[in-house]
């Protein structure tokens, strides 16, 4: 029982990060119908950036902020360099390959200049040794913190999108870009902002993950991105509720598979879910089936 509870907590915690990643994918998908295949490297960049800045002497909290800021800026550059020029080129293959390229490039650069080994991540939020005892079960405090933090961030994002005018403007651009422009909304600015927020959020997710795992290496973002992608597909691409539910489900399933069967299954099961979803229900749990009129 203890074991299951531990797995559940870890699963929800990691899952909440997956949910956040899925939301970062949603953000760019809404405004441009594209997805950054190099998103994993954005996560890695902010985690590594935090380490680097901390080493150079910046106070940890500040280092995180700067690293997240850098992530946001890099995303804006990605929109300019990899996405906009590649739009319209051979369907989606253009930007998919371009963004993948950026991811590989960033990973390669970091590996080249900082080495490929895993680096220890300083404890930003709290010591990883802290435990809470709830109902006789020991739960790592950092898991709770990460979970709470993620949920709050997600809730804040939803609130922004639903309750504020600018949030509705983002949704408006997502629905009908032309109409939004004609209605006076600064479409390009909104697109760039969505990319920046996507990057910042990915940065936060990267830092949170590094907190839990404890180490960072250049390849660290890729598996996260994949799980985040499965979460988005499971929940339904474009839906934030879907991202949340999908993320938590994937997180928990992975942990249970890992804990009860083997780590290999833990790694592989979300991919199996991906293939099954794409084969049988590509629109996910909360997505809408798009009917095509010729």
């Amino acid at each position, binding site marked *: 029982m203890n074991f299951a509870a531990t797995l559940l907590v870890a699963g929800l915690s990691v899952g909440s990060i997956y949910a956040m990643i899925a939301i970062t994918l949603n953000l760019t998908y809404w405004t441009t119908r594209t997805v950054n295949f190099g998103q994993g490297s954005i996560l890695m960049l902010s985690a590594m950036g935090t380490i680097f800045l901390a080493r150079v002497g910046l106070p940890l909290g500040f280092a995180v902020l700067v690293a997240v800021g850098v992530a946001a800026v890099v995303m804006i550059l990605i929109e300019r360099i990899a996405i906009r020029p590649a739009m319209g080129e051979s369907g989606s293959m253009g930007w998919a390959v371009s963004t993948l390229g950026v991811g590989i490039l960033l990973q390669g650069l970091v590996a080249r200049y900082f080495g490929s080994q895993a680096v220890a991540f300083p404890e930003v939020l709290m010591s990883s040794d802290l435990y809470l005892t709830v109902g006789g079960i020991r739960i790592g405090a950092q898991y709770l913190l990460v979970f709470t933090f993620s949920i709050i961030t997600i809730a804040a994002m939803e609130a922004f999108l639903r309750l504020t005018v600018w949030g*509705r*403007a983002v949704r408006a651009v997502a629905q009908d870009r*032309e*109409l939004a*422009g*004609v*209605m006076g909304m600064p479409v*390009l600015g909104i697109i760039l902002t969505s990319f920046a927020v996507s990057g910042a959020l990915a940065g936060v997710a990267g830092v949170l993950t590094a907190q839990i795992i404890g180490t960072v290496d250049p390849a660290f973002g890729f598996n996260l991105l994949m799980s985040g992608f499965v979460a988005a597909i499971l929940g339904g691409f474009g839906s934030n509720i879907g991202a949340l539910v999908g993320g938590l489900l994937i997180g928990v399933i992975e942990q249970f598979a890992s804990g009860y069967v083997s780590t290999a299954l833990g790694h592989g099961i979300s991919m199996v879910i991906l293939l099954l979803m794409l084969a049988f229900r590509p629109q996910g749990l909360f997505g809408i089936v798009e009917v095509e009129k010729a």
Partner: protein
Amino acid sequence: MLEIAGLSVRYGSVHAVREITLNAVPGRITAILGANGAGKSSVIRAIAGLVSYEGTMKLGTRDLKGLAPNRRAVLGLSCVLEGRRLFRHLTVEENLEIAWRFGERKATFSILRDAVFTDFPILKQKRFIQAGLLSGGQQQMLIVSSTTVRSPSCLLLDEPSLGLAPVIVQQVFDFIVRTNREFNTTVLMTEQMAAIALRISDYGYVMRQGTLVAEGDAETLRQMQGDGRLSKAYL
């Protein structure tokens, strides 16, 4: 108010609009008539800034060259595009609010919104319902209101009667006329249904295959319809 000269719109090699010149006189309702495929929508889209074009376009004294759609909107241009487009996942009230927020905001939202609700009580009833769930006629009412809530100086409409029951068409057109009357809004609308357009317009242009084939004040055009010359121009 809106002066267009030598307007040409091409989609690749398809010459949808071939050097037309027209004027929307300030404070008046001007109609562009013609069958489908005549190029009417392309004219509106060009004015809105959604397609590239050749020729000059002036709104008041301001040259519109190179301006993105949202910049033109800020100058007082408001468009009802073809195809009953609105933000389906936003509620009626949210649609109005967002339209107002990014418009010129000449008055507070509550005043302008209440004016809309007075004109279209059904919208008030449904104010918290998602726009996508409204009926076609109600949607068109919302779309038209979304433009007037912005207090535009120039209102463009692309086939506003398309797919609507006559009763609704009447309501919508009455609304357009009231707006024009009260706020002196210049109106430029495309319409296939010449009869209804001519009921409220002051002046009209007839397009066919991308060019202007006739123009005149409403009375002249009505006579043309009466004696069959108009359908010849259309068909």
